[in-house]
């Protein structure tokens, strides 16, 4: 039983046909003690299936330590949305509801390699001397 309805799948497919470049969903999961992991992995798989430009890799959070460390993932379920390179975008928890739209937007952004931010914002961020870690806490509705 798919998570996405036929209607949503069609809309997402249409959105993703315009992707200018590759995108990759790197999913971290675990079989036990992770209530939403299975749903998260299924959702990522369903999205990846809608476009040839979107690849998916699924890793075990407990066993694939090298990859977990490489992406700096500290909790699950997690999805790293990467393009030609890792832009630092992470989704923790199932991106359902409004966050599903955010996930699709993130895929489009990394695929294009263009954030869409204002020149002034880019200028300020280009001058960063220390890393920034943003955590945006949201709810699905």
């Amino acid at each position, binding site marked *: 039983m798919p998570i996405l309805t036929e209607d949503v799948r069609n809309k997402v497919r249409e959105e993703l046909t315009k992707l200018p470049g590759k995108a990759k969903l790197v999913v971290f999961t675990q079989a036990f003690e992770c209530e939403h992991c299975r749903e998260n992995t299924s959702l990522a798989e369903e999205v990846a299936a809608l476009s040839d430009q979107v690849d998916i890799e699924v890793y075990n959070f407990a066993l694939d330590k090298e990859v977990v460390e490489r992406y700096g993932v500290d909790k699950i379920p997690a999805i790293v949305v990467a393009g030609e390179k890792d832009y630092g975008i992470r*989704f923790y928890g199932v991106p359902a509801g409004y966050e599903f739209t955010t996930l699709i937007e993130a895929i489009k952004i990394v695929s294009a390699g263009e954030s869409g931010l204002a020149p002034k914002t880019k200028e300020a*961020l280009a001058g960063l001397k220390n*890393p920034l870690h*943003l*955590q945006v806490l949201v709810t699905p509705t």
Partner: protein
Amino acid sequence: MVRADMVEATEFPHLVHKYNVFGVPKTVVNEVVQFEGALPEPLFLQQVMKATVEEG
């Protein structure tokens, strides 16, 4: 230089507790700056850059 996490609050109650989340969206930057609500880009940037000042 920038890492951005979307965190689904209901799945990570310990973070809701840690960051005193009463409303969403709530943004936490480098553990030193916190703000609630969706801000227009210039104001969002202003808040985010505060973290670089707070850290000296």
